[in-house]
């Protein structure tokens, strides 16, 4: 589904990704871990098409198609979704108007008929319940005055309505207390399916107590330095990120194996 090969990217002339390879198949959930500055959010931004990042080498294909040549909205139409670490506030655009416009733009791009306001509202109400979102938020400006947790819930609601095939969740756990984390994680779990892949970017192992990954990758200095099963995350939790810079990645993977 998604294939990343030798990806290098820079922001404002400063190289961040130094040759990254990753393959994601339908139904899989990959956790992407690593210390701050390792390039996790850059990768998420590059995949979604954020123009502040400049791709300097490598290729990314989605179902065999060159993803990097597509505008952000075309990527969305193909089924790529990014849940932002810091969702932006858009006063003056109501949440529901925004989401209906987005859904209908996607439907149009896919040759489907638009949903009218009533049908849309029924879908949106149902999906809001996935993360127990207060219906009062529906008509507020997009993320306007939302708390950190409400913003994260709103990202999941958007994912639930837009039904992407590949969802990239960038630090969906940051700034959440334990109750909110549980609600958001349950929302994510309810949206897992055989057709839908997810890349969950996180700094902490804590999220993976609630969302069980199929694969865990550890990033450092713009590369994936090691990959393994869920147990790799536990090894990281125990030893911290400082360790991976000191020890060869294989040793870390071995430690993960040992814990299993």
């Amino acid at each position, binding site marked *: 589904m998604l294939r990343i090969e030798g990806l290098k990217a820079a922001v404002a002339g400063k190289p961040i990704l130094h040759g990254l390879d990753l393959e994601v198949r339908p139904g899989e959930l990959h956790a992407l871990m690593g210390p701050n500055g390792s390039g996790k959010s850059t990768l998420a931004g590059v995949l979604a098409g954020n123009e502040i990042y400049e791709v300097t080498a490598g290729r990314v294909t989605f179902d065999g198609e060159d993803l990097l040549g597509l505008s952000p909205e075309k990527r*969305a139409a193909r089924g790529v979704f990014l849940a932002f670490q810091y969702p932006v506030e858009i006063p003056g655009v109501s949440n529901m108007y925004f989401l209906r416009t987005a859904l209908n733009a996607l439907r149009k791009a896919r040759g489907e008929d638009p949903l009218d306001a009533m049908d849309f509202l029924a879908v949106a109400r149902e999906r809001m319940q996935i993360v127990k979102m207060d219906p009062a938020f529906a008509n507020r400006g997009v993320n306007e005055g939302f708390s950190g947790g409400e913003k994260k819930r709103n990202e999941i609601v958007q994912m639930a309505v837009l039904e992407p095939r590949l969802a990239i969740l960038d630090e969906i756990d940051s700034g959440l207390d334990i109750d909110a984390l549980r609600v958001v994680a349950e929302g994510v779990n309810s949206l897992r399916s055989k057709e839908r892949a997810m890349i969950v970017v996180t700094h902490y192992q804590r999220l993976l107590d609630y969302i069980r990954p199929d694969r865990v990758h550890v990033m450092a200095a713009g590369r994936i330095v090691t990959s393994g099963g869920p147990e790799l995350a536990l090894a990281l939790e125990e030893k911290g990120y400082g360790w991976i810079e000191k020890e060869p990645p294989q040793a870390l993977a071995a430690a993960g194996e040992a814990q299993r």
Partner: protein
Amino acid sequence: MSAAEASFVAELERARASSAHEPGYLASLRSWGRETFARVRLPTLKQEDWRYTNLAPLAERSFADARPDPGEVKGLPPAPRLVFLNGRLLPSACDLEGLHPRLRLSSLAETLRERPALLEPYLGARPARGDHAFLALNAALFEDGALLEIPDGVWVERPLHLLFVSNSGKPAASHPKNLVLAGRGARATVVEHYRGSGPYFVNAVTEVVLAEGAVIEHDRLQEDGPEAVHLGQLAVRQAAQSRFTGESFALGGQLARVELVAELRGEEASCNLFGLYVASANQLLDHLVEVDHASPHCTSREVYKGILDGTSRGVFAGRIRVREGAQRTDADQVNSNLLLSEEATIDTKPQLEILADDVKCSHGGSVGQIRDDQLFYLRTRGVPLGLARAMLTWAFASEMVDKLGPEGLRAHVGRAVQGRLPGGELLREVA
């Protein structure tokens, strides 16, 4: 002397003769207007209030007398309404159906003929703003306009529409004059709407007088044609505990300027002013807003927003004056601008003149572009670039549109504003 000045001077001479049969106070006002204009002429960039507003599009035209084309006026607002064509009442388009029985909505010219004494207090005094070329021209040359009298205690639900249409094929000028008199505790909404086609000049003066406790919403909608030059004066005088809400939408015209002066003359009066100007191509849209706190315990709020595209120019001058003794004044002014092109410009100038010591006055504002992070967010959800830009531009504008009281007007203005935004047609498709 510019072409326009020469034609105005000639017009003033012609008008002198026809003023002979008018009431004495009016003849005296006309004479003041003629003398003042002959002396001050059109303002130039050297004058502080006109530093950013070049009147060349007006000055280079020579204006003949406006002869109304016999064509009918279409797309009329709901009744009750008065319609003026090229400065004169167009009785066939007026409709007073549904007018509150105690309300008087009439032609100013007719009232001058039938009840001249009523207007003496308003037309007998020289404008307080002195050497003002456009007030002078209007005083000397106005032919008609609306007179709205709302008696004490009368509350009017339905908005009252005043529509001014200009449709001259050659340069022509009109000088409408309107008077709104709100009695004690009276309540009403007045819509002053300008539109038309052709190279015309409209020079309107509206006075709104609020007695104690009156509550007036005044919605000003300028949708003039692309070749028009529009000068609009709005003078508001407020007695104690009155509440004035003024909205100004400046959308059309090649050059358009609104000057609003609100005088808070009684305690606990409040004045809320909102404005939106949307300019593209080479339009120049200008607002000069002065709130004069002449009494203690008054409140004023101003929010003006501008959207500027192409090589258009916006000008905003906001003046808050707090007179000696106007303690506990609470005044706030905000002017925010969205520039959609590299070539568009805005000149914005707040001025505070405070002569009392126990006051709360603030001003703020911004000049910015559509934010890339908001644009990216919308696009990642599948919203195409053009639509995303239009949505964000409309989000900026809609706050002002939403403040309009009358629902039908809100819808009309919403469509008019969207119609002038880049990508506005995309918004209609997803509505």
